[in-house]
């Protein structure tokens, strides 16, 4: 479903050159849940953002469902329809109601008519458990509710892949569970997911594979059992000691 080879992203700013993503090659099969972990600044977000073209990478190839993002002729908007993204800061549209947040892109990108889009939106709101809030504005929802709306908004586009960038990091602890529950359910339904998170419990329970990144490089990858119990790399061991 996703195949990246030697992806490199270089930031240049104030005379400094940062290799935020440094030659990462990875694969994600359809229906697989891959969790990316690593210390702060290791390039997890940057790598994830490369996967849907929010960040343009300097070297390498990313092939999504057979389409190469490095190819100049690729219509990135078409790819993005198939790749949903959930952000740490939710990024709901504050001037739209919950329902409109979910129907807007369906109407203008997927060209669905109003009724169809609303029906889809209500069905998804039901699924993430906040059907009663459809007429509210995002500012009147709790963080956990906002993030669930954001997930519903991404799902409404019927994506083949969902990317999550620390979806629970901005949440109060008591709301983390409700968002993780939605994600677990998605995983069970067979959604292809790439999740950057600090929730080691989630990684252990849901991930098919764990990728550990440090300083832009993919340092180690493997099943959760392998990674959490007997990591090979020294850096991974140090990291696990700190977070567990």
């Amino acid at each position, binding site marked *: 479903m996703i195949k990246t080879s030697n992806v490199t992203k270089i930031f240049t700013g104030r005379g400094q050159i940062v290799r935020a993503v440094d030659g990462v090659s990875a694969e994600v099969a359809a229906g697989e849940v891959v969790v990316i972990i690593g210390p702060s600044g290791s390039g997890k977000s940057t790598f994830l953002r490369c996967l849907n073209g*929010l960040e343009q990478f300097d070297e390498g190839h990313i092939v999504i469902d057979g389409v190469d993002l490095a190819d100049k002729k690729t219509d990135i*908007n078409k790819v993005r329809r198939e*790749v*949903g993204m959930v*952000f740490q800061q939710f*990024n709901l*549209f504050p*001037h739209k109601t919950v329902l409109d947040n979910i129907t807007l892109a369906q109407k203008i*990108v997927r060209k669905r008519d109003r009724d169809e889009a609303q029906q889809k939106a209500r069905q998804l709101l039901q699924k993430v458990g906040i059907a009663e809030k459809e007429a509210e504005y995002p*500012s009147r929802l709790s963080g956990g509710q906002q993030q669930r709306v954001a997930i519903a908004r991404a799902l409404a586009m019927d994506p083949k892949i969902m990317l999550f960038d620390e979806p629970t990091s901005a949440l109060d602890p008591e709301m983390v569970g409700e968002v993780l529950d939605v994600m677990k359910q998605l995983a069970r339904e067979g959604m292809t997911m790439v999740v950057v998170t600090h929730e080691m419990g989630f990684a252990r329970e849901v991930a098919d594979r764990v990728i550990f990144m440090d300083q832009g490089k993919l340092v180690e990858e493997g099943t959760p059992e392998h990674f959490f119990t007997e990591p090979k790399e020294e850096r991974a061991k140090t990291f696990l000691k700190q977070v567990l």
Partner: protein
Amino acid sequence: MTGSQSIWPWKLLLAAILIVMAAGTWGAVNRIDYTWRWNRVPDYFLYKSEESRKIPFDGWVEKIISVGSTSTVSLVSESGEKVTVKVATNTVRVSESEDLFEGDTIGFVKEWRLGPLTTGLWTTLWLSAGASVLALIIGLLTGLARISRNYTLRGLAALYVEFIRGTPLLVQIFIAYFFIGTVFDLSRNAAGIGALAIFAGAYVAEIVRAGIQSIPKGQMEAARSLGMNLFQAMVYIILPQSFKRILPPLSGQFISLIKDSSLVSVIAITDLTKSGREIITSTFATFEIWLTIAAMYLIVTSILSQLVFYLERRLAASD
């Protein structure tokens, strides 16, 4: 002690200061021996004109039919040609079967006419409205160009904004009329509106740019990640949110535009200010006219700010 209790001494002080200032002005005006003629001012808004109606040929009056305040006078020429003329009954100067020569006055027609203050205000209003619409379009495009990725577009927009903000509007109006207007054969109205629009457009551009940049980056990213293209993301996500933020400074800019429009009187556009100057050359009510004109500008601008205030409150629904 609560806030409402402690404020009334300050209200009293404010009232006292205003009264002292008014009294001082009044005293000063009295000393310079000025005769106030406020009763003349209403005529400059609306007046009743009397226009004479004349016979277009040599002939005679066939008959006069008076219905209420209007009379219909039927005239017959020496060659048998007939015309009827309507005049006010109490101004009829002729009687039935009287012989008349071409150009003799039959009577008068009384009509309400708009005075120069009203027409001047109207000119100021449409001039400002036209310039505002253009300024909004120019400002929006320039503001977007200012934050575009294209270096040439950014450079052009920055140069335009710098040039306009670095030169006086009065000079710009002269350039627009005498230079550009001559080269491209523009009317004075076109030159006036154009100069005002280009001037205000530069400021609107900066307001638009700041408004767009004040929207968190995540909004654009969320929109793009849903597959919207740049244009759709701008139209549906970024601009509506910026609009709410730029509305207050934008309305301030348009209020300035209404006031600045008084400068176009230098290229002989008869706006409110120019009308005032013309009235004063034929009357001696200098004080009254300028005070009236100031009040008229004030009323227009406060109506506008009230409208914006109302709009802002309606837009605040999602906060």
